[in-house]
């Protein structure tokens, strides 16, 4: 009997280890929500991509639920993502773009080539606004409610499946 118990030791050791591994999974920073959730969209003042003369600020994002998409001409995934964004725009959702670390010519060229689902694009050549948003790379998408509060944050590529299963329900939730 005693020997049987000794034989159980490896199993117990493994169980303890797997509890830690499980904890480790939930500590994974990739799945933790952004620190920005439920906070105000950062205050900013910038010109638009389309018209250098036009200045916009935070008030642009108030009054209506808006998806803010961070993109750049240099980002191949953003090109793949465009059809989904166009689809969202067609469903009547308001989209605002942030042209991140880009030149004005390249940014406009991109919209010409891949379509423009955005009501307006904030031009962020130095990545200042992206920096404040804690953007690690493009594409990233933020859902901002009518009070200008960030409600959802999507890092990386939005698949057609994400549109149906994540983005649309989130938009409806805050509508």
């Amino acid at each position, binding site marked *: 009997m005693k*020997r*049987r118990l000794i*034989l*159980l030791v*490896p*199993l117990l050791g*493994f*169980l303890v*280890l*797997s509890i*830690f*591994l*499980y*904890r*480790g*999974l*939930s*500590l*994974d920073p*990739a*799945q933790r929500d952004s620190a920005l959730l439920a906070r105000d969209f950062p205050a900013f003042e910038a010109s638009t991509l389309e018209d250098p003369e036009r200045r916009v600020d935070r008030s642009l994002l108030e009054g209506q639920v808006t998806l803010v998409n961070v993109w750049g001409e*240099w980002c*191949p*995934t953003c*090109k*793949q993502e*465009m*059809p989904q964004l166009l689809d969202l725009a067609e469903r009547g959702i308001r989209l605002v773009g942030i042209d991140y670390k880009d030149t004005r010519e390249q940014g406009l060229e991109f919209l010409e080539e891949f379509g423009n689902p955005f009501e307006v694009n904030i031009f962020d050549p130095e990545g200042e606004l992206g920096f404040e948003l804690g953007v690690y790379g493009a594409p990233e998408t933020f859902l901002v409610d009518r009070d200008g509060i960030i409600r959802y944050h999507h890092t990386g590529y939005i698949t057609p499946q994400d549109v149906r299963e994540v983005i649309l329900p989130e938009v409806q939730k805050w509508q």
Partner: protein
Amino acid sequence: MLIQMIPEIGHFALILALLMALVQALMPLAGAATRRPLWMAYARPMAAGQFGFVLLAFLCLSASYLLDDFSVANVANNSNSLLPWYYKVSAVWGNHEGSMLLWILMLAGWSFAVACFSRDLPEAMLARVLGIMGLISIGFLAFILITSNPFERLLPNVPGDGADLNPLLQDFGLIIHPPTLYMGYVGFSVVFAFAIAALLGGRLDAAWTRWARPWTNIAWAFLTVGIALGSWWAYYELGWGGWWFWDPVENASLLPWLAGTALIHSLAVTEKRGAFKSWTVLLAISTFSLSLLGTFLVRSGVLTSVHAFANDPSRGFFILMLLGVTVGLSLLVFALRAPRVSHAVGFNWLSRDALLLINNILLIIMTVTVLLGTVYPLLLDALGMGKISVGPPYFNALFVPLTVVLCLFMGLGPVSRWKRMATGELWRRLALAGLAALVIGILAPLLYGGEWNLWVSLGLVSALWLVLPILRDLYDKSRKTGLRRLSLAYWGMVLGHLGVAVTIVGVAVVSNYSVERNVRLAPGDSVQVAGYEFAMTDLQARRGPNFLADTATFEVRREGATRSFTMAPEKRLYLARGMPMTQVALRPGLFRDLYVAMGEDLEDGSWAIRIQYKPFVRWLWLGGLLMAAGGVLAVADRRYRRRRATAPAGKEALA
């Protein structure tokens, strides 16, 4: 039409493979439990069928890559039409989904090989072994189909071109490193399956170890080569000149290697002497479990590392479940079925039995230290005790002394005898070798530039202590019986131990006598490093197929020599990802490497250049190859071949 359907065919083949794996697992295991030969007979054809369909799926994915089918998400994210064809093929396993598919292909391949080359196994044993391998296949096929389908399409909006393969992975090393490593990892599933089958069947005698030994050796040899390749790749590709970083991913491959090394020795004791039965079974389970743990650590992203795959929590959770079920169940079976009474075989403290026991204990201690260092950050984080990292000093502080102690006993092993041995005889055989090792090891570093170094001496003494007694033994044997009559298994041991010695020499010398200089250089400047003069003659920009590069040209001359040679390191910027890469210039040699890498553009026409002199660095990997060759040679031994004389031809290649 058919070409457009390739991804769907691949996907469908995977589903069929899963169904076959289900049958392969359930029917034979049920058959073995209820003694129904007909049910057991399902094992072989199902293993063959499963392998066929997984192979088909793999070929389909490769075809999608070669045909630039960017409607497949996996291809679009990891390939590019500009990529040369061989990188398109290796890009198949340069990403999470594809490498999982390769993993499964190898698992199915090993099962198929067992089905082919084990005609002399008792039917029930074979049924159980293949059944268990089928169970593992089910887990991984479900994993890939549910969470990481490589055939997912990007429809209807097909990207015009792919995002390109990570430039770090556009390299010969990556073409061969992962397949070899996985062959090793997955190969341990065979001995695992044998061990569990023996537990289930209640036949825990020496027989299962005799069947499992060749498979274990081959898997171990693959893993050894895989680790050596990984180290070589890091050395020339990462641009720092390091060859081992104690990175979690590297540790993940070292853990099963250490346990596997203990296992091949312990299998020997169990086969020859019938001792350590439960211990060997436990080691077999642990070795494969550590392979799975490695997979989990690499795939789930719980530990951050230089080359972990992109992480996805649902995948991590799935693999953890797989790991939990596989390891948990097998340890449970072990606890319930392992022999109650240890078969006490008396042995003397200077016998080979005792030495192998010590070898096993030391290797397991090494495994545990590495495991602890690897998961310690995770443990503290989970307990809320802060973010830490365990650096190389920890691993070195423990691994080096443990290796020295291991060598001490390893030197004794080959000359000792089973069961018991007279102290006088051992002493007579070893005294001269020991003395010579000590003298040469202490004096040799003085010859090398006259700079004595404790660690180099320690390394040389250890290495010589491994080699000299074996040479003495060979000399004795050649006089007594002649070298021709020695078995291949013996030669395998000699080669394996020699490989360890060679690696130890490499590690000791390169860690202590390397010279590294980081200098600021512009064309026209020159610098002296370790007896060589490096003169930067030119700096140019050029355009490659999918990158831009700054190339520096160096004329390198050994001091006092008139002939010089050219070295041309590069800093590349890969266009599709905007990612910079350091292309090292290497001048390899058996006794030293010269290593030049471009660091940073200092923006006034000069560059920060890293120049290194690496003595004996090749010995690291050479030793690895020798070890692997030893493992394979031991399998070719006559007693395994005779045992299979009835099997069809063609197996020699594998054995």
